[in-house]
């Protein structure tokens, strides 16, 4: 039960039920689709980058489990106002946190550290990282959908 509580922390359940920035962005200039064929999770990320390469707006639509929805929701909150380079750096930190590789920096991760419990559930890692991979694809304006497989 303890590791379940570590996984499904209050803040994750809250974001899973009430995702933030769950909408389309009319002014988006970067979008990408993500898909997990194993569980059917789908996400579409909308990014609006300003001329200086700063994330002016980021939001999403789609359907997924609590982990993937919360991860996407909290990612959008974390990335608003960040530069491209900062967004990529945060992806690296988050990836390290989920996969248990390297030494994630808790200060850089901030609230995202609540996802540390996912490490104990390796078959849920893709739920937590789908949005992040999709975000990276959006930054690069990749046309083909991102798949976890």
């Amino acid at each position, binding site marked *: 039960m303890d590791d379940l509580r570590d996984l499904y922390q209050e803040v994750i359940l809250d974001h899973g039920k009430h995702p933030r920035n769950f909408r389309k962005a009319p002014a988006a200039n970067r979008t990408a689709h993500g898909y997990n064929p194993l569980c*059917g999770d789908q996400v579409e990320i909308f990014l609006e980058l300003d001329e200086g390469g700063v994330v002016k707006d980021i939001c999403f639509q789609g359907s997924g489990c609590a*982990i993937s929805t919360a991860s996407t929701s909290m990612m959008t909150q974390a990335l608003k106002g960040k530069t491209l380079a900062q967004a990529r750096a945060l992806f690296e930190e988050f990836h390290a946190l989920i996969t248990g590789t390297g030494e994630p920096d808790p200060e850089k991760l901030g609230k995202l550290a609540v996802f540390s419990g996912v490490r104990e559930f390796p078959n849920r890692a893709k739920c937590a990282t789908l949005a992040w991979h999709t975000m990276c694809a959006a930054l690069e304006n990749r046309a083909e959908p991102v798949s976890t497989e």
Partner: protein
Amino acid sequence: MTSAAHTAPANEQTYDVHRIKADFPILAQQVHGHPLVYLDNAATTQKPRAVISALEHYYAADNANIHRGVHELSGRATKQYEEARAAVRAFLNAADDREIIFVRGATEGINLVADSFGRSFRAGDEIIVSTMEHHSNIVPWQMLCERSGAVLKVVPIDDDGEFLMDEYEKLLSPRTRMVGIVHQSNSLGTVNPVKETIARAHAAGARVLVDGAQAAPHQRLDVRALDTDFYVLSGHKMYGPTGIGVLYGKRELLESMPPYQGGGDMILSVSFEKTVYNKLPYKFEAGTPHIAGPIGLKAAIDYMQAVGLERIAAHEHELLAYGCELLAEIPGLRMIGTAAVRSSVLSFVLEGIHPHDIGTILDREGIAIRTGHHCAQPVMARYGVPATARASLAMYNSRSDVEALARGLRKTIEVFS
């Protein structure tokens, strides 16, 4: 050959589910500190000791290549391989051993028919499948349509997950060449009226392939009573090993079909001028087959028959009804698949909780279920859900297993409340 150690299954009078469970070594373990409750049987069933022993015995005592060696071991391996074919023939009540083709699984059986029988299909020909087919009984036909210009038609299902016979009748025409239908749906549990489906197809001049991967462990099969043209089985879904399946085909059809793959064993003679193909069933078994596979599958069939196919079906039927009763009391639970005739599958969604999260929480209680689209995405689309949670039953499941499921679901709701 002395047969590998078989544990005598439960006696005739009572269905002793605990004794049956004890024949499956894998079930006697703890998962995350709880006794394993295995309810993912539609994905794959566990193997009784008799099957594991048969495989071990084959490799430890009799392994050799078949149909060629003059030596003792080759003779033994060949004998057991062909005895397995006869056992499958009897299990399906087919007329002739030559109608039993060993393949890798139900999927390969369907691909074989789509490739070989489908080679004569032309533009304008039609193939009918149902909405509730597994992807394995959709994609090979789509590929055939791409190659040949044939057209795929789909029989809809109603809200309960019932095959709509009237809609099917409307789709049948002189252009229909093939009907592919699942005997028992893996995602809904619906048991389809295949006998009538076949009779109507035959009246229209079409052939029928029945996907029996899910039906085989849950009911007595009789391909002659059904009058089906083709029937496919998956060994690992009926207590046998993975990597082995069966294609049954009526002999005259198999005789008329070109080989599926070329290679050793499927030929009588080879020269660069002319190659003569082997007779049935070897024409369709190119290369050294998975010899241990049929041997393990025969042990699984023997085990099921020793327990009794009717007794297994009755036990599972009672358990399914009990499971439905327990799940009906769970707040916010909606069953997906409520056909009048169904078997062994409890597919459902919980309001506000994604199936994937249900699966993780149940797993921590030692309960194994499947979550996702079950390789039946058209079914998910039909019900407007991205995925379902599916508990599926087998002969070794007991009332306490479905009680554990219901408890686990209440706990899931608690975690999410």
